[in-house]
């Protein structure tokens, strides 16, 4: 019993330590953001006069409203389309078992490990030839394509486990495949769908590489892409940079804290399947 108690205490100490390591960087960022703009503060030190106005300054400097709008537009362009395509293709793979699905499936599995940088160069020239460079479409269209392997495999994993009898019953009732899909399978896939949506939202919002390569104007980028250029612009003004970073992180943090349970489930399951 004593052994067990000692183990419990060690475990608690470890967990708290780990949480500290996770949270301290954020704390440092926050207190630094309160220092007078342009100074070089120490790692963690409470300023004599907290400059809350830094956040307002950063809000204007980073053009936050424009960024929020831009990122939201990109998310709206990417997520619904990816979810719909992914679901349909996943249904075809997992349930209908369309001819040749094994080969296509392998193609998607390979796509899952693909580092974005590997296709970056051809992608750039292709987007340029399509005349989409520096538009939001330059981020939206490739992202839909790049998310396909994950979306398809995710939904396939769901549909594979749906009992065959369900479809047979619906067919006996005279449902077409189209009806079968929308009225029978999509409703029961809702948990899988919402997790997929959460993950894709996060990955789109945080997408950096495509944003800096394909779009020059920070106002048309994703949040993460804009953060990169914000750093380039205000990199030497540490308090302002910290305030700006916090602001840019805020939307995802707030959404995360509201939907934390769904997020954690989705992310854990997401990495297992990914």
């Amino acid at each position, binding site marked *: 019993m004593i052994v067990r108690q000692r*183990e*419990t205490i060690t*475990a*608690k100490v*470890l*967990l708290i330590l780990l*949480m500290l390591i*996770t949270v301290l960087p*954020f704390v440092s*960022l926050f207190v630094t953001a309160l220092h007078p703009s342009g100074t070089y503060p120490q*790692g963690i030190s409470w300023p004599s006069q907290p400059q809350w106005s830094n956040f307002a300054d950063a809000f204007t400097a980073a053009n936050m409203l424009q960024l929020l709008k831009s990122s939201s537009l990109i998310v709206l362009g990417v997520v619904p389309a990816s979810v*719909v395509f992914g679901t*349909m*293709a996943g*249904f*075809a793979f997992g349930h*209908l078992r*369309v001819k040749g699905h094994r080969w*296509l499936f392998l*193609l*998607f599995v*390979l796509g899952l*490990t693909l*580092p*974005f*940088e*590997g*296709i*970056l*160069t*051809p*992608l750039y020239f*292709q987007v340029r030839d399509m005349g989409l460079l520096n538009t939001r479409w330059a981020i939206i269209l490739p992202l*839909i*394509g790049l998310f396909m392997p994950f979306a*398809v495999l995710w939904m396939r994993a769901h549909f594979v486990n749906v009992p065959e009898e369900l479809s047979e019953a619906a067919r006996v009732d005279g449902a077409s*495949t*189209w009806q079968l*899909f929308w009225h029978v399978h999509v409703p029961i896939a809702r948990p899988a769908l919402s997790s997929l949506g959460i993950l894709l939202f*996060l990955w789109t*919002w*945080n997408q950096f590489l495509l944003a800096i*390569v394909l779009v020059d104007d920070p106002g048309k980028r994703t949040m*993460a892409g804009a*953060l*990169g250029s914000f*750093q380039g612009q205000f990199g030497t003004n540490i308090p302002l*940079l910290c305030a700006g*970073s916090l602001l840019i*992180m805020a939307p995802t*943090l707030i959404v*995360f804290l509201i939907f*934390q349970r769904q*997020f*954690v489930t989705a*992310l*854990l399951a997401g*990495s*297992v399947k*990914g």
Partner: protein
Amino acid sequence: MYAIFVLRPMIVSVQYSFYKWNGIGASTWVGFDNYLRVFTDPDLLGPIGNAFKLIVFFSFVPVVLGLAIAATTRQIAESRLASVARTVLFLPQVIPLVAAGIIWTWLLSSTGLVNQVMDAVGLNSLTRAWLGDFSTALPAVGVIGAWVLLGLCTLLLLAGISHIDPALYEAARLDGAGPWREFLSITLPSLRQEIGVCVTVTVIAALASFDIVYISTQGGPGNSSMVPGLEIYYQAFTERQVGAASALGVVLMLLVLLVVLPIQWVTKERD
């Protein structure tokens, strides 16, 4: 009619993947020399070596630490503290990697928190601008990656541990097994799949790292923390060496496959 609606998105996605391969096909048109360059030019070969060094930080550290933490915290996995931890440890996963890069650039700077702590414990002789030093830039980048991935690995492994039948542990205790023995004969084998997932995810993150390096060091000082992803970016958009960039891209994709497939095979096989 339904087939059209199912096949269409499939073709669209296949079409997308075709575009990827097409673009790479175009690089062969430049010739084989690019590949030769990738394997002989130190500017291109160096980053690949760095990527492998990053695996130590991105994969090895989080997985080993994660295992240790998950194994010790197994008994309190249901407690309130653990559920708070679940939320907190996910924070690095939710913020953009760019933000992680910015935060740590600040922490690792000469007046940052890391040096402040080292001063406080009397290690002031070692303090430096970690990301600006030839010998520490790459490990410093590695530390950032480890911070981002440690929470994820810990939680994945903890989730895996909670699926292990507690009776196994009870039996081991009755047989007089110590914590270490318990870990080796029960925890480790049962977690094979979760460990495989952690290693796969983190290895890909290491080999394909871009955001963090771009923000924190830009590959410098010199080329000391250059990684393939960033080198591709520079080759293609600064040096205008599209061929070399694409060749490096192909090599990177193959590398990821070469590294990931055996991991998958080993961890799935004995399931």
